């Protein structure tokens, strides 16, 4: 009897079915009011900015497209008020690879394709872990072999390397060597004995206290004066080393921030499993720290790519150097604006792509927004 009463008293819990969130309908007028004209200060700012856009955009569009010349030579261009694009077409090869031998251009092209392929493979998660890292470490070597020539391929002297190829090569080697170096400096500063710690701090602070341009002058001009002649390596290599050191010092500080952010429990869990301290750092701490600082790390890569434009000052003809040379071509005098506009556009395109790529990488993996 009691059984039956208690059953009758018990109410069954019926969960409510889930509903979709309400969507808010916003008309264009509402959108304008909300985003551009909320309050008098915002309205004023919006009006001023819209005014500036209305003034600049037509001028830009006229110069870039409507008045521009797309076919012809310097004479035709000089008749027109717009941009001279034939000048840029004609200069594209030299802007890309400098005076690199025409018949061997396929070699840097192969290296470029390898770079793009690796970029794709990394993003698509096709390769991971050890293979991924090895592939990235091997890429600069592969690029150097392809561009410089070895293993029976015709050698191309380093004085002939130039253009965007040289800029990308300097940045690529710089980034890929300076990240492991930065990791080592950061680990030395974080875990090292007092002596190691002092050395790492000394190196980092010394480099960070000097502008890159000064470092480039030191390695390019002053180093040959002090070193015995048999120890002098070529100019390009010295400049590359200067850039690596510069980049590594900044990378180290970024990575140290990541090391600090890893909870102590991670180290303890790994040690408690009987994994050695070194392997714990290598496989548990460093990967997490790098992932943690991916955004500023990508920022450093972008900065380094832009910084390669400084090598023009120590006599290398990188992309910007070639732009400058092109602007001085007697057949195409007077088209500096086009040259520098194009330079700015290419730098922006590459940096913006890097930035987007970095963000896409951040959103992946176990800590990303999308799992």
């Amino acid at each position, binding site marked *: 009897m009691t059984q039956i009463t208690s059953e009758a008293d018990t109410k069954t819990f019926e969960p409510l079915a889930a509903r979709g969130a309400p969507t808010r309908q916003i008309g264009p007028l509402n959108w304008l009011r909300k985003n551009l004209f909320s309050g008098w200060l915002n309205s004023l700012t919006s009006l001023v900015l819209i005014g500036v856009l209305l003034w600049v955009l037509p001028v830009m569009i006229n110069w870039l497209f409507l008045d521009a010349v797309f076919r012809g030579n310097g004479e035709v261009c000089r008749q027109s008020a717009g941009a001279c694009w034939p000048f840029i077409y004609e200069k594209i090869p030299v802007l890309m690879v400098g005076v690199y031998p025409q018949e061997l251009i396929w070699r840097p092209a192969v290296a470029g394709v390898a770079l793009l392929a690796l970029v794709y493979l990394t993003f698509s998660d096709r390769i991971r872990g050890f293979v991924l890292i090895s592939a990235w470490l091997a890429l600069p070597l592969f690029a150097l072999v392809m561009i410089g020539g070895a293993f029976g391929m015709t050698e191309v002297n380093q004085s002939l390397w130039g253009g965007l190829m040289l800029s990308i090569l300097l940045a690529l080697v710089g980034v890929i060597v300076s990240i492991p170096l930065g990791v080592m400096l950061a680990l030395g500063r974080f875990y090292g004995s007092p002596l190691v710690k002092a050395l790492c701090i000394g190196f980092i602070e010394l480099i960070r206290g000097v502008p890159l341009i000064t470092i480039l002058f030191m390695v390019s001009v002053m180093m040959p004066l002090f070193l015995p002649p048999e120890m002098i390596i070529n100019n390009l290599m010295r400049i590359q080393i200067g850039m690596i050191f510069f980049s590594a010092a900044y990378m180290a500080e970024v990575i140290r921030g990541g090391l600090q952010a890893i909870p102590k429990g991670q180290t303890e*869990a790994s040690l*408690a*499993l*009987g994994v*050695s301290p070194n*392997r714990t750092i290598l496989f548990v701490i460093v990967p997490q720290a790098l992932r943690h600082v991916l955004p500023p790390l990508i920022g450093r890569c972008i900065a380094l790519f832009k910084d390669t434009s400084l090598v023009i000052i120590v006599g290398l003809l990188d992309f910007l150097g070639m732009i400058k040379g092109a602007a001085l071509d007697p057949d195409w005098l007077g088209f500096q604006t086009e040259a520098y506009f194009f330079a700015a556009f290419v730098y922006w395109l590459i940096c913006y792509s890097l930035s987007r790529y970095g963000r896409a990488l951040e959103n992946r993996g176990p800590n990303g927004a999308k799992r």
Partner: protein
Amino acid sequence: MTTKIESRVTTNETVIEVAKVNKWFGDFHVLKDVSLSVKKGERIVICGPSGSGKSTLIRCINHLEEHQEGRITVNGTVLDENLKNITNVRREVGMVFQQFNLFPHMTILDNLCFAPVWARNMPRKEAEDTAVMYLERVGIAEQRDKYPGQLSGGQQQRVAIARSLCMNPSVMLFDEPTSALDPEMIKEVLDVMVELASSGMTMICVTHEMSFARLVADRVIFMDGGEIVEENTPDKFFDNPQIDRTQKFLSQILAH
């Protein structure tokens, strides 16, 4: 599971010997003359108020903390500065933490394979087979390819237990393994621990789960202020505590 798990102590073999251990954090005396001997197959539960040194004591056993006086022996190896001894002891002693401490950048399977591969040089294939076996044992084999962040707290703690078991330890240390869990998940972790106890594993558990202590413990140890205050079989400990400090503590935790 409500029936008492019978004692599995069959030999007189001592696995852990803690003798007159003292430890200080700066000037703060955390462990005072602590002595404890654990036999093979024995299950010890340690309880006591927060800050009484429970965590510090078990962390000394695998040398995550260093003791300054006294002697700790694990499977006949004395814990001293010798890094090789320490690493060897750690491979023999599994530890489960309150905060799970899974490696968030590795999948569940990689979490389990990591130590066997890098600390025991086990071939990856063999490590995976072992890992899958233990994942099945703790009931979450289907989660092997997920990341820790995608699992519930209870599942993460079971993974953490499986991760320790993959090293085939002879002792397991638990530091409040259910304290960070929602009430609904406590049972699934305790079930795994009970199952482990009934398989004969030597265990030292810091926990306030009294039902668990009654069920599996051979001995309950009460600590306060860095000392072992009282030590008894669970029934005597809970029903008839000998020391007033223990009585006060028990009345406080049982009041909830």
